[in-house]
């Protein structure tokens, strides 16, 4: 005999089950203890600012196309009701993150904004590269995960392989979030990413145009490169307008995602219950799956959609001198877009007298 002790645990399955339960319990406690939007510290900062008095009468939620393109002070002066607006949009903040922000707000206590404007955007279907960035998945829970997988499996115009790949990525992203992969590093890294200027803008109202950022952060080479590439490609603006016109010309026969539409209708119902006017905004589109967005806008009640993207109605948004890069407006473009949005809120004509 070699004198070794018995190597076999007496009840391995029971030990494994107990370990799994303990792990699950600890993860549940951690998830509950984490503050809202901890993985996007600038969104979290906006969320905190939103809860400070005085509460804004108008709230904007969305990605960079809201964050960079809507100037709250200008909107307030155009509407002229003495109330103020807060821009809670932020770069690379897409559905379902934006919808979660609205839901948290509408389900939360206290006074609510009278108007909430949410960018109508596609579900962020996870590119492989995005899985490496926790910003894209840190907030996902079981319900979101199931919704994303169902949405991915539905996607028309994609091959079965693509749909399965999207669904697999959505499932992986949800697993990453639930299992808290790399949570310690993400929490520490996120804390160091927080930046008051980026989160709240120079006026504290949450907006920061791209040109303003270039002025205030001159060392930001990424934006300079983006701008340079746009200036070098003189046909970019025209291409985008043509592409979007083509999307409109295809007509509204693109199928609508039942998952996405259900989510938006649920948000509208909730807003109605809480006495909030909730509208979905279509800014100048990305071309990628833009037809899905147009179909979605068509399926929603007319009063719930503000579409400011048709190149024939809003040619000003496709002029190179109003654009910062191929996907965003510059200061001048943002001013025009804000005016159009404010007029739409007041029920006035939107695009007619904007400079062409």
């Amino acid at each position, binding site marked *: 005999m070699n004198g070794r002790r018995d190597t076999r*645990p007496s009840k391995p399955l029971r030990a494994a089950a107990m370990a799994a339960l303990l792990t699950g319990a600890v993860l549940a406690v951690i998830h509950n203890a984490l503050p809202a939007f901890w993985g996007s510290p600038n969104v979290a900062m906006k969320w905190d600012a939103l809860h400070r008095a005085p509460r804004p009468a108008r709230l904007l939620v969305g990605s960079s196309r809201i964050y960079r393109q809507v100037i709250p002070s200008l909107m307030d002066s155009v509407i002229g009701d003495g109330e103020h607006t807060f821009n809670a949009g932020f770069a690379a903040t897409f559905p379902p993150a934006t919808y979660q922000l609205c839901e948290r707000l509408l389900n939360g206590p206290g006074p609510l904004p009278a108007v909430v404007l949410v960018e109508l955007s596609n579900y962020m279907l996870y590119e492989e590269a995005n899985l490496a960035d926790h910003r894209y998945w840190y907030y996902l829970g079981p319900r979101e995960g199931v919704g994303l997988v169902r949405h991915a499996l539905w996607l028309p115009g994609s091959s079965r392989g693509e749909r399965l790949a999207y669904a697999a990525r959505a499932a992986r992203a949800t697993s990453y979030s639930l299992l808290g992969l790399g949570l310690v590093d993400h929490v520490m890294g996120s804390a160091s990413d927080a930046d008051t200027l980026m989160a709240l803008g120079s006026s504290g109202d949450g907006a920061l145009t791209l040109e303003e950022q270039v002025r205030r952060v001159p060392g930001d080479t990424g934006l300079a490169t983006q701008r340079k590439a746009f200036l070098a490609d003189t046909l970019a603006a025209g291409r985008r307008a043509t592409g979007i016109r083509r999307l409109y010309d295809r007509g509204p026969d693109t199928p609508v995602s039942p998952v996405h539409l259900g989510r938006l209708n649920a948000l509208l119902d909730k807003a109605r219950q809480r006495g909030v006017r909730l509208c979905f905004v279509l800014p100048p589109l990305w071309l990628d799956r833009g037809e899905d967005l147009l179909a979605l806008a068509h399926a929603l009640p007319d009063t719930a959609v503000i579409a400011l993207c048709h190149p024939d109605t809003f040619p000003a948004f496709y002029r190179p001198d109003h654009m910062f890069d191929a996907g965003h407006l510059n200061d001048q473009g943002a001013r025009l877009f804000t005016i159009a949005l404010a007029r739409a809120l007041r029920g006035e004509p939107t695009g007619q007298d904007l400079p062409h």
Partner: protein
Amino acid sequence: MLFNSAEFCLLFFPLVTGLYFLLPKSWRWLLLLIASCWFYMAFVPLFILILAFTIGVDFVAGIAIERAEGPRRKAYLIASIIANVGVLAVFKYWDFLNGNLTTLFASIGLEYHVPKLNEWTFFGWLPAGMVLPIGLSFHTFQSLSYTIEVYRRHQKAEHRFGVFALYVMFYPQLVAGPIERPGNLLNQLNAADGHGIRSDWDSARVAHGLRQMLWGFFKKLVIADRCAALVDPVYGDVTGHDGLSLVLATLLFALQIYCDFSGYTDIALGAARVMGFELMVNFRTPYRSASISEFWGRWHISLSSWFRDYLYIPLGGNRVVKWRWYMNVLIVFMVSGLWHGPNWTFVIWGGLHGAYLVLALVCGPFWARVHAFSGLGRFPRSMHALNVAITFLLADFAWIFFRADSLDDALAAIGRMAGTLATPLARPGIIDVQAPGQFAVTVLCALVFLAIDPRYDALAKGERTHRSLWSEAVSLAALLLACLLVGHHGASMFIYFQF
């Protein structure tokens, strides 16, 4: 395919293991062979041809050696060795030899130019600059051990090609060992009783395997990859970092390479154990060694025993005159260094270890006298602790050459570290290599690991058990949570894959 990838954890391992137990026993070898091909081809598919060449040559050589008598046996063995070493020479050492020849010829005023291997793309089938097949040295040595054992009549030749191929390709240990011997793995593959691989489902054994895998994942994700995130930037720019950062990076590298390699080994051993295979133990808490010779009995055991059995002993081992003995030790360690990679830094790393051992042999009697005369033997624990510390520092000093990208970098690092001793302590730059707080978390993880390693290592190997069900559940949950929450999840390569 990397063990620490989602592909392995969520698809490959559960699928292969599930099918393994569902299939009739006589089909399992085929499943494992196909799975091993899939595993290997996940890196660069074309490289399987090199593996097939090695397998084919050694399969034929084994049978030929068994059937032949007299000098022909040796001829077949030599042919097998030439073929295997030839593969290594071409795919691993070509550029190294070429580079050195170019330097040599240039020093005597001659021009020598043969294209580098990494400039070949094999008619566009391979990306340029990517010609070293993963784990080449491991499976070549494993295959070689078979023909040598057949030649020594310690092992019968394998007559089933598929089973022999599986012996060389068995996926858990294919790319980074342990370098198995036919007496262990091939015999397990052949323990057929006429019914193929015979292991049945045994929940205790499966749980033991999974626990060992979890311990391996902990070492890789929580310790090795965290350390790597600090070490790599420092060693990637030696001249841009202060001496204290280099000292800390070198200490962390000792932990990184141990956890990276032994973590891989634990995952390999655990995955094999789940299916009923017992692979060689490759590590036994090496940094607790009290001498360099003990260190090599605890570090990469399958390689050091390979060199002992197939190089050191054939050279005469210690049964020769003293200077030859010392020379044998130096040769074995320098070859062992070269085995790791085609770079003089590895040769020096091996040579340093050889020199440590020779020095210990030469000075051994003197130290024994000092020991007896001074009465230090009255403090055995303190002396042991001192020896462990000295051994660790010697091993860690050698790691500088192992980790540095070039000899110049290694020497620059040593110079800067030495300079640190003469200058007042300042905040080392390594603290700021990552986001605030991450250095502290890594150091904390490292300290926790050092404290729990002996106990958990014994638990993983099955050499001790938990006191209660609760303690087992809590320790499993703690390891799992640490892997999930504190681990680095970028699916980074294992260091030893490159060898």
